């Protein structure tokens, strides 16, 4: 197999996709050419005073038919071609198309006057297109073959070894037997072909090199982002260890492992545990974001969202009972299984549901509504809690942001939660919106409503999109 893809070209998915799109474009273009040929063969004579013989009509008609069948088969064959450097790949497919097109064009030129045929100009754009996508060696060989073909046709017609089929009416005198005309035309034709191939190939090469550099730069940015995230994970872990140890020790005292503790001291130690827990939650969230950015390794598993939400509600049972909050889950339409990363989605939903419960006063309501639409899953998580002030609703997904109406000192939070939720939803190609007041809020407790849309299949969408490198922002 001829090696058409040079080693220095990065054959990523995008590269093959571009080639495939190009092949489809060629096929479509050829259908246009077929239409033009039909018009030329049957309509052109009525517009200008050019006469085609019956033989020419038949020959062009037959060639057009062959071209049509050939193009139709290309349309179906193209789907079976694999993207591999070593075997018959989309670039070989393009080469075959160029070669067959040139052969058919040569036949057409032969039946429309040889050196007198204006169709030889079509060689030029074929060779330019070829030069943009093929290695130089291949294109120079094709250019050389084309020139030789023109020389042979002109010579054979000139020496009457084959018949000359003129386009009656184009020229007032016969040119195919005029050696000066033949030599001059062939000379300039050859020059045009060679220079076109040279220029097009050179420009294409430069573009390839630029694109390669861009890809490398993008990769470097990604690599340094990875290093940064690893560094953050390392540092944050170092910070976590002493806090975890502190909490372990304080818990030990509170749990009475070191003897009795007076209620007054216990109360303060409980506060210490609450505060260290907060900082540990914050650290865990940062670690999670880092992991999300660091490893693009979302697992894709089947998730029953309804069960997942039940699990989360179960986890908050204690606080829900304590605050006497009514948590209600409703489902609309037949349940559909979602593909996604279970750990991450659970984290996102538990953040939202946790917030709803946390910021809703005693005896409040939290409604979770899942609607399984055809294209995506829509989840509403609404409450009649403290709500989010108008002036701040746009900022809540920002990192380290906390609404200023959160004053209760028992509700210190990291402010990382919602930014993490948004990141997870984005990673699943979904969207998240927030509304406050919610539909069932009161002036005192306006409430908040989060709406998440998630597509069911993570993989399908990613495949469609192709695997592009992406630059991620840092923590």
């Amino acid at each position: 197999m001829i090696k058409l893809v040079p080693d220095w070209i990065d054959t990523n998915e995008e590269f093959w996709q571009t080639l495939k799109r190009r092949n489809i474009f060629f096929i479509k273009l050829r259908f246009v050419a077929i239409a033009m040929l039909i018009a030329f063969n049957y309509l052109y004579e009525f517009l200008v005073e050019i006469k085609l013989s019956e033989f020419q009509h038949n020959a062009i008609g037959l060639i057009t038919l062959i071209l049509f069948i050939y193009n139709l088969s290309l349309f179906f064959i193209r789907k079976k071609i694999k993207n591999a450097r070593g075997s018959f790949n989309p670039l070989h497919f393009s080469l075959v198309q160029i070669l067959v097109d040139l052969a058919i064009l040569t036949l057409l030129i032969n039946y429309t006057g040889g050196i007198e045929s204006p169709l030889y100009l079509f060689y030029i754009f074929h060779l330019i297109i070829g030069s943009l996508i093929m290695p130089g060696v291949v294109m120079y060989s094709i250019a050389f073959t084309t020139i030789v073909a023109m020389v042979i046709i002109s010579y054979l017609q000139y020496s009457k070894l084959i018949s000359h089929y003129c386009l009656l009416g184009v020229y007032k005198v016969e040119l195919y037997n005029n050696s000066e005309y033949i030599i001059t035309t062939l000379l300039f034709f050859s020059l045009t072909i060679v220079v076109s191939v040279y220029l097009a190939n050179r420009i294409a090469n430069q573009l390839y090199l630029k694109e390669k550099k861009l890809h490398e730069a993008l990769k470097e940015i990604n690599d340094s982002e990875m290093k940064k995230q690893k560094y953050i994970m390392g540092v944050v872990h170092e910070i976590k260890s002493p806090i975890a140890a502190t909490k372990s020790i304080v818990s030990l005292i509170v749990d009475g492992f070191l003897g009795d503790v007076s209620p007054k001291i216990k109360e303060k130690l409980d506060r210490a545990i609450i505060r260290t827990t907060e900082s540990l939650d914050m650290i865990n969230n940062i670690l999670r974001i880092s992991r999300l950015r660091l490893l693009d390794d979302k697992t894709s598993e089947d998730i029953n969202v309804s069960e997942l939400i039940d699990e989360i509600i179960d986890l908050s049972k204690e606080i829900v009972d304590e605050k006497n909050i009514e948590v209600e889950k409703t489902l609309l339409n037949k349940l559909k299984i979602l593909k996604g990363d279970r750990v991450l989605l659970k984290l996102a939903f538990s953040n939202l549901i946790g917030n709803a419960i946390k910021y809703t006063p005693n005896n409040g309501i939290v409604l979770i509504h899942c609607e399984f639409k055809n294209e995506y899953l829509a989840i509403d998580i609404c409450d009649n809690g403290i709500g989010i002030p108008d002036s701040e609703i746009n900022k809540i997904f920002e990192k380290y942001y906390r609404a200023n109406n959160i004053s209760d000192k028992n509700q210190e939070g990291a402010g990382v939660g919602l930014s993490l939720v948004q990141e997870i939803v984005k990673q699943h190609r979904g969207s998240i919106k927030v509304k406050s007041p919610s539909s069932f809020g009161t002036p005192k407790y306006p409430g908040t409503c989060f709406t998440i849309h998630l597509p069911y299949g993570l993989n399908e969408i990613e495949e469609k999109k192709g695997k592009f490198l992406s630059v991620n922002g840092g923590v």
Partner: protein
Amino acid sequence: MTLIAVIDDDHDILEATELILQASGFEVITIDNPTEGYKIVKEKKPELIILDVMMEEPDDGFFLAQKFRREGIITPILMYTSIAKAVGMEFGAGEMVPVDDFVEKPISSDELIKKVNKLLGDNVLR
């Protein structure tokens, strides 16, 4: 009395673990580095090993656990982790690393005792 070896480079964690386990009636030996830990486990043959995943070097705990298993030491291993759960790596028993269970730091006495009892129970059945 059942002997449990605790290997961790954080002395506070060692002390906390020791206190919790002793209160539950276990005999505890604490070691603050993997080299020493390996030696003592070989010598004293505890019935349970508690091992921190990261000591001087990340993964020190994993390597030590692998070393024990390679040498045919089948003593149950309970691994202390500090970021595993946070970063979403919730291992199943024996998956990827040859340990029997995980406890995420900070240590909760209830969780620790529950897991220790479970592992020792499992081992007796073996």
